[in-house]
């Protein structure tokens, strides 16, 4: 089955038409408006929008104005659901004013974040009137905006719950309990993947993955039988393999993705030489 068929048979969602800046766009009913805007390449700045998690509305940057019965109301487009006749406008003077203050606040909250600097500069904000938060001991390198995506990915997607918010108010940070290495971390790196400001860091050192942002938590890596290279966190490999059919499992458990690819290619070539029928009809 092709991809197109799969998507059309998958969910028979009602199609609606939404209006963004006076132009009409198709959308699935209930679809997140920011998602529609991203798809249609309409620029709405955002940090905390992550399609794999429920909308949360933490960063407040994706503000739009909803026009309903002649009235306008500002709201976050990441928590707005597409419905027939929904009409929104972006970049109104009120939104620009609101958003520019937010950019200034973010420049102060995460002064080392290049992502934020670039995003703010795109909207003409290059300076902040607020006191910059510069803490040399910050394990997130003064790049974190506390949107909580890493905490939620760790909890809700991975089920690990290795990290959490610590303290309160201006003292809030994200880290492991007691700022010590934690056994709850799989080393999957989902936290780094979802981080909108690239604040979360980890690196692979030999047989270990070191979660430098998370109190130096160390996670052992799985080793490839063929090339001897380390390629994935061991615990994660084991738990992933549990869902895979036994015949595949052995092969995947032993080899890193590169060596596996090579073996598949080699097997294909050998099968082709043997005159076997092509499997990709």
């Amino acid at each position, binding site marked *: 089955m092709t991809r197109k068929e799969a998507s059309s048979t998958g969910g028979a969602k009602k199609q609606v038409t939404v209006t963004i800046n006076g132009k009409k766009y198709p959308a699935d009913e209930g679809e997140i408006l920011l998602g529609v805007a991203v798809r249609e390449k309409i620029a709405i700045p955002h940090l905390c929008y992550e399609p794999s998690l429920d909308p949360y509305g933490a960063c407040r940057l994706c503000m739009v104005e909803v026009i309903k019965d002649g009235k306008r109301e500002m709201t976050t487009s990441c928590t707005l659901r597409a419905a027939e006749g929904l009409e929104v406008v972006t970049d109104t003077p009120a939104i620009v004013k609101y958003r520019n203050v937010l950019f200034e606040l973010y420049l102060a909250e995460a002064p080392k974040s290049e992502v934020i600097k670039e995003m703010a500069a795109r909207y003409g904000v290059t300076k902040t009137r607020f006191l910059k938060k510069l803490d040399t001991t910050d394990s997130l390198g003064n790049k974190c905006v506390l949107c909580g995506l890493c*905490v939620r990915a760790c*909890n809700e997607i991975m089920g*690990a*719950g*290795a*990290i*959490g*918010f*610590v*303290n*309160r*108010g*201006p*003292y809030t940070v994200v880290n*492991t*309990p*007691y700022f010590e290495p*934690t056994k*709850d971390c799989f080393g999957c790196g989902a936290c780094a993947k979802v981080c909108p400001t690239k604040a979360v860091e980890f690196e692979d050192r030999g047989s270990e993955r070191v979660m430098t942002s998370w109190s130096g938590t160390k996670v052992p890596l799985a080793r490839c039988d063929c090339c001897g290279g380390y390629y994935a966190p061991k615990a994660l490999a084991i738990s992933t393999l549990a869902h895979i059919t036994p015949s595949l499992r052995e092969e995947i458990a032993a080899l890193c993705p590169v060596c596996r690819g090579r073996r598949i290619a080699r097997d294909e070539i050998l099968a082709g030489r043997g005159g076997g029928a092509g499997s990709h009809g």
Partner: protein
Amino acid sequence: MDEPTLDAIIARYDDPAGRLLGILGEIQDEEGYIPRESLAMLAEKLDVRLSQLYSLTTFYSYFSLTPVGDHVITVCMGTACHVKGAPGILEALEGMLGIKSDTSEDGKFSITTDDKKFTLEIARCFGACSMAPVLRIDGNLYGYATREDLPAILAEYGWEP
């Protein structure tokens, strides 16, 4: 805290919703602070991540993760107490106990004397504004407090000049 004591506390909460704060509060009341071992044990017993419990305990100023002194002095710094002179009370207490307020890295205000006899804390409001300024020592409330009253009050708890 030993396991049976913790089990007894947990047993008092049959509804999983909102029980964490209640349990943590009881641990704190029992021990004076929340010992690390208790938190780890609780996480295991309730099948809750340690990171979640640590978030809760560091969020609320009520919880302490470090042992406190024999007597805990809490000065109310709520609006009414503030305008009625609570900062002066706090300053006087710091002088008497020989400690200096320094909001620690976690943003909580809690200092313990070197001899571990007294811990000085602040609170936002006791709800006893009519008696402002108010302070509390080991659960006993002292209203209409003045700097002059302090030596006599503290003497009740073994303080010597």
